[in-house]
C-alpha cells in the first residue's frame, strides 16, 4: 500500500490518498495521470495493465489500485 501511495504522490502530489475514495469520479486523476500511473505501476511491480483493466472502479482509490496490482502480479 505504501508503494502505491508513493507512486500516486509522484504522479499527482498533494492529495490525501489514504482516504480519498473517488479519485476518478472527482477528477483528481486525469487521463494523463492514469497513463503515467499505469506506466509506473507496470515498471514497479513488473505487471501488464491492459485496456481491459481500464475501468474507473480500478482507479478510484489506493485500495482499489492495490487490489488490481495484486490481481495482476
Amino acid at each position, binding site marked *: 500500500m505504501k508503494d502505491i501511495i508513493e507512486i500516486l504522490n509522484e504522479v499527482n502530489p498533494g492529495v490525501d490518498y489514504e482516504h480519498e475514495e473517488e479519485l476518478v469520479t472527482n477528477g483528481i486523476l486525469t*487521463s*494523463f495521470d492514469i*497513463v503515467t500511473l499505469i*506506466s509506473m505501476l507496470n515498471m514497479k511491480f513488473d505487471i501488464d495493465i491492459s*485496456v481491459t483493466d481500464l475501468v474507473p472502479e480500478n482507479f478510484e482509490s489506493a485500495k482499489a489500485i492495490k487490489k488490481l496490482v495484486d490481481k495482476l502480479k
Partner: protein
Amino acid sequence: MSYTSLQFLIFVVVLLFVYYIVPKKYRWEILLIGNLVCYYLMSGWLLLFVVLASLFSYFGAKLIEKRKEKRKKIFIISLFSVLGFLLVLKYNNFISSLLNPILNIVNLNIPFKKFILPVGISYYTLEMISYLADVYLKKIKPENNFFKLLTFYTYFPKVLEGPISKYRDLSKEIFSEHIFNYESFRKAWVLIGVGFIKKLVIADRCGLFVSNFFLEGHTGLLTIPAIIFYTIQIYFDFSGCIDIVSGVSELFGIKLAENFRQPFFSQSIEEFWRRWHITLGLWLKEYVFFPVSLSKTNMKLNKKMRNAKYKHLSKFILVAFPLFFVWFFNGLWHGPTLKYVLYGLYYYLLMMLGILFKPVLEKIVKILRINTEVFSWKLFRIIRTTFIVCIGMLIFRSETITDAFNTLANIRVMDSVKFFELGINIKEFVPLLVMIFAMFFISLAKELKIDVREKLEEQNLVFRWIVYWVIIFSVIIFGVYGRGYDAASFIYGGF
C-alpha cells in the same frame, strides 16, 4: 428533411402520438420504424449502407463471442468491414492522393471519385466501432436482437449530428419503458426552442456576415469580427442542433449524452476540448488515447526514457505519442483533406507546448507572484483560450492553411466595406446581440450549477407562458429563413 424544417416537426408530432398510444413494450419498435422513415427522408436509399454496416457489426460481435480462439482476428475484420464504408465513401480521395505518387512509379493510379455520403456516416461508424470494441474488451455482451442494434444506430434524433453514443449507455434509455410526463414534455420543448434560437436567430444570422465577408474577399480590420462571428456561428449551429435533438429525444423519454458544457468558459485548450463536442473527445479518449498509451511500443519507449532518468521528458512522451494519434484522427474525422489534419495538429502542437513548458510557466508565475485564484487571472486565461480557438476556427473555415495565414496578414490591408454592409443591418444586429447575451447568461447560470429549465418550471403559469411565447416569437420574427422558409443546413451535419 432538416431538423429545423416544418416536415421534421410534423414527423416528430406524428411519431410521438403513435409512440405513446401503443403499449410500452412495443414502443422501441415504433421508434425503429420512425428511425428508418426519417433516415429515408433524409438520405433516400443510402439507408441500405447503414443497414448493411449494422449487419456487419451485429454478426461481427456475435462471432467475437462465439469463436473465442479467433476473437482478435474477427474483431479486426469486423472493424474494417464497418470502417470500410467510411474509408471508401468519404476518404477515398484522401487515400488516393497519398498513395498515387507511390503507385505512379509502377504505372498504377487510383481514380478520384466523389460519392454521395449516407447521412451521419461519420457518427454511426464511430458508434459501430465502439460497440465492437466493447464486445471485444468484454465490457458488454453482444446484442441478440439485430433490430435493437439497428434502432440504436439509426436513432433519428442523433443520427445526423450526434451526440456520438455508446450502445452500453443509450440502449438502457431506448429500451426501458417510458411513461408520458407532462412536466418533462414542457421542459423538452423549452430545450428545442432554445436550440431553434441558437440555430436560426444567432448562427444563421452570423453566417450571413461571415459568408459575405469571406466570399467577397474583404480584408482589413473587419476580419476580426468576421472570425469572431464564425466562431459564434459554429458554436451556436452545433450546440443549437444538439439542443434540438436532445429536446426531441426527451419528448420520447430518452436522454442523450451531453455534448457541450459551456466551452467558452474554459481556461485552457485541454479544458476547452473537455467541454466542446464532449462525446467525440470521450470516444477518442477511450478508443484511441488509452489503447495507444498502453500499447507495448509506448510503454517500452517510456521505460527507456525513465531508465535514462529523463523523468519529465518520459512523462511528456508517454502522452505525446498517443495524443498525436488522437489529434490526427480528430482532424481527419472533420474532413478528408490535409487542411483538417493540420487543424487537429494545430491543437496538438499547442497542447504539447503547454505540457512541455508547464514547469517553466509555473516557475514564471511563482517569480512574478501572480495570484492564480483571482477573477482577473481566470478571465485572462479564458480570453487567451478563446483567442486560440478563434484562430483554430479560421483554419477550419479557410480552404487551405495558406489562406488562413493570408486572411490574418490581410488585416493590415484596408478595405472600404462597412460593418453594416455585410448582410446584417443595425435592426438585425440589435436582436442578435440581445440573443447572444441571453445565451451567455443561460450559460453563466449553468456554470453556476443552476438548472435553468428546472427554475423556469418552478415559476407561475403566467410567467412560464410569457417565456414560451418569447421563445416562439423570437424564432419566428428574428430567425433567418432562406428560399421556401428553409433554414441553412447544419455545418456539422456535413461530416
